[in-house]
């Protein structure tokens, strides 16, 4: 979706202002927000693509006025409600008022190290051969889906060059919506600055994205 998350090329957000000796967390609640997000995700009822989509579905005014752990927390509440773990009455009371569906699993402290060390690999075998290879010219599709996609607006309808075939990966555009993994080949596609930004672009700039095969058409 053309949501608030799709920031490439936007203007007006001001200086980057990196913080010297930035602490890992800026408040105790940020630690709990991180841990809650990972522990709730470990119940196994949604995936990373659905999580990302929940974050980008925040109203733009809310998204842009929230810090990242605020965005995570608000999206986590939405996911917990959608999947039957938390109700509006729970949230209004700040306590467990209603029941919850039974989770597939509950993360135990002794399982944390193993879970983080394993991660969640998203590569998948693919029966078909890749359509494109390094050196091929491709054009990204120009589409505006209302659901989740990982093709940013600034790179839609642009001609680039395939630099590498990265393997088969879960397709987020369907996976975010409970419509299956549908793995596709992923390619690193490189664009010149002038293709993306036109007049006045930095002549020394190259930008790449990692694109699923269905985002691309041959040129």
């Amino acid at each position: 979706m053309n949501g608030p998350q799709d920031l490439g090329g936007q203007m007006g957000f001001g200086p980057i202002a990196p913080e010297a000796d930035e602490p890992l967390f800026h408040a105790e609640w940020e630690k709990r927000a991180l841990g809650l997000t990972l522990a709730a995700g470990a119940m196994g009822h949604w995936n990373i693509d659905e999580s990302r989509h929940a974050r980008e579905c925040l109203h733009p005014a809310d998204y842009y006025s929230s810090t990242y752990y605020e965005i995570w927390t608000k999206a986590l509440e939405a996911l917990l409600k959608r999947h039957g773990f938390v109700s509006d009455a729970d949230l209004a009371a700040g306590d467990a008022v209603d029941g919850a569906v039974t989770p597939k699993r509950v993360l135990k402290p002794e399982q944390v190290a193993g879970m983080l060390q394993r991660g969640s690999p998203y590569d998948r075998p693919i029966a078909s051969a890749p359509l494109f290879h390094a050196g091929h010219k491709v054009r990204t599709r120009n589409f505006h889906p209302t659901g989740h996609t990982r093709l940013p607006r600034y790179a839609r309808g642009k001609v680039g060059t395939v630099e590498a075939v990265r393997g088969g990966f879960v397709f987020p555009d369907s996976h975010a919506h409970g419509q299956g993994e549908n793995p596709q080949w992923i390619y690193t596609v490189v664009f010149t600055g002038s293709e993306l930004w036109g007049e006045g672009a930095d002549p020394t700039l190259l930008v790449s994205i990692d694109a699923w095969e269905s985002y691309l058409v041959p040129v």
Partner: protein
Amino acid sequence: MTHDHDHDHHDNDLDPMAARVRALETILTRKGLVDAAAIDAIVETYETKVGPRNGAHVVVKAWSDPAFADWLRRDATAAIASLGYAGRQGEHMQAVFNTAETHNLVVCTLCSCYPWSVLGLPPVWYKAPPYRSRAVLDPRGVLAEFGLVLPEGQKVRVWDSTAELRYLVIPMQPEGTEGWSEDRLAKLVSRDSMIGTAVALAPEAA
């Protein structure tokens, strides 16, 4: 935003969010969905075990051992795992090497994708709109805000992390550090040099 990008601090609206997160933790733990001790273990992992020292180890190994550097180019996930760094948000790694011809810069314009297994949790600026919006449009302007001015002839390559591949920049080894121990070299490798918003420090810094 509740943090004001016109100033170089990032103060949050602490009390409402602290209350909101505490309430959510209370709800989830009372329902038996989340174990508070598991949250503690997650936080402790990223406070004490997983951080940019992991990535610096990878970089200095690549500087010191050409066979490792070659492995890192061909199969970064396996090469990095051989040093003990793997897992969440580092499942599919790519190492990109800076050269005199090309400087690499990593961003995630769509969210906050970042190689946790080697760099730990991302800094606030990496996740915030100013960096995410401008890194792909005006990277030299972005780098200048970090105090990094590249030579005019050096190309800039920006890697937008739109999929599950995670990118680690391998900065160039500073001149005059040949033969240094890995521990001494690691002092020259900052987190930002592995994102691409800095280069490795000069030898005097070690």
